[in-house]
C-alpha cells in the first residue's frame, strides 16, 4: 500500500469517527424532538454540542402529560440503542459484499457509529445509574425508581454489542490495512477510546459535574476499562 493511500485512509478513519459522533448526537436529540412534535409539545431550544461528551447537547421542550414527558425522556436513549442494534447486527454483517470503494468509505463510518451509539446510550445509563442526571434523572424521578436499575440493563445490552463491535472493528481495519489481517489485538483496540472518552467526561469543567467526587472518578475509570478487557478476554482467551 502506498504512503499517500495510507494517509488518506487514516484521515478518513479519524474524520469518520468525528462525523459519526455528531450523527449519534443528532439522533439522540432527534428522538427527543420527534416525541415533542408527536405530542404537540413546544420546543424551546435545541443544542447539539460538537464537544460532546465533554459538553452535553440538549433539547428543551414544554411537553404536557405524564406519558408524553416519560416518552420524551426515554426517546433519546431508545432511538440511539435501536439504531445501534440495527447497524451492528443487521447492516454491517450484510454490507461486506458491496463494491469495495464504497465499502472503504462506508464501513469506517458504520463501525464508529456503532461505537459512539454504544457509548451514548449505555455510557449514559452507567453514568446515570451512579449519579442520575439528564434523561436518567427525569426517568427515575417520574417512575420513582432507583437509578441503579439502569446498571444491569446496560451490562445486559453491552455484552453482545461489545462482541459484535469488536469483530466489525477487526474486519474493517483488516479491509483498510491488509497487513493487520489475523492480528488479535485489532478487534479490542477500539475500546481504548471508551477510557479516553470517560476521562473527558470526568475531568473538572465537563457537563457531568462530579464535584470532585474521588469515588465516582475511580469507579467510572475502572468501569471504562471493562469493554476493552472483556474484548481482549474474548480474543485471547475464549477464542484461542
Amino acid at each position, binding site marked *: 500500500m502506498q504512503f499517500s493511500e495510507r494517509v488518506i485512509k487514516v484521515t478518513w478513519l479519524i474524520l469518520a469517527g468525528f462525523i459519526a459522533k455528531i450523527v449519534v448526537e443528532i439522533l439522540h436529540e432527534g428522538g427527543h424532538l420527534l416525541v415533542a412534535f408527536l405530542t404537540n409539545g413546544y420546543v424551546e431550544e435545541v443544542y447539539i454540542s460538537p464537544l460532546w461528551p465533554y459538553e452535553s447537547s440538549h433539547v428543551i421542550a414544554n411537553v404536557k402529560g405524564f406519558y408524553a414527558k416519560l416518552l420524551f425522556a426515554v426517546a433519546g436513549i431508545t432511538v440511539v440503542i435501536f439504531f445501534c442494534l440495527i447497524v451492528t447486527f443487521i447492516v454491517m454483517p450484510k454490507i461486506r459484499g458491496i463494491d469495495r470503494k464504497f465499502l472503504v468509505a462506508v464501513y469506517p463510518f458504520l463501525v464508529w457509529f456503532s461505537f459512539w451509539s454504544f457509548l451514548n446510550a449505555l455510557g449514559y445509563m452507567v453514568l446515570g445509574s451512579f449519579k442520575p442526571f439528564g434523561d436518567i434523572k427525569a426517568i427515575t424521578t417520574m417512575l420513582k425508581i432507583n437509578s441503579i436499575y439502569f446498571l444491569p440493563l446496560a451490562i445486559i445490552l453491552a455484552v453482545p454489542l461489545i462482541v459484535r463491535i469488536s469483530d466489525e472493528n477487526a474486519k474493517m481495519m483488516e479491509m483498510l490495512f491488509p497487513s493487520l489481517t489475523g492480528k488479535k489485538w485489532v478487534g479490542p483496540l477500539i475500546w481504548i477510546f471508551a477510557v479516553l472518552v470517560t476521562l473527558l467526561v470526568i475531568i473538572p469543567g465537563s457537563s457531568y459535574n462530579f464535584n470532585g467526587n474521588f*469515588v465516582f472518578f475511580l*469507579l467510572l475509570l475502572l468501569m471504562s476499562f*471493562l469493554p476493552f*478487557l472483556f474484548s481482549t478476554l474474548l480474543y485471547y*482467551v475464549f477464542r484461542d
Partner: protein
Amino acid sequence: MLKKQVITVLFSAVIALIAWILAAYFWTLKRFWLPEVSETEKLFIGLTAPINIAIFIVFFIATYVVIAALAFKVKPLK
C-alpha cells in the same frame, strides 16, 4: 498460556476492584458517622475494612474460576 492467565487475572482484578469500591462506598461508607472525616479518608477506611477486603478476594476468585471453567474447559475430578 501465560498471556491467557495474565488477561484472565487482569479482568478478574478489575471486576473485584469495582466490587470492592462499590462495597466500601455504598455499604460501609454509608454506615460511618464520622462528620470530621473527608470522603477520601472514609473510602480508605472502607477499603481497608476486613469485610471489604474479603469481598475483593471472593469476587476475584469467583470471576477467575468462572472464566477458567468456561475458557480452559476445566473438568471436575472424578
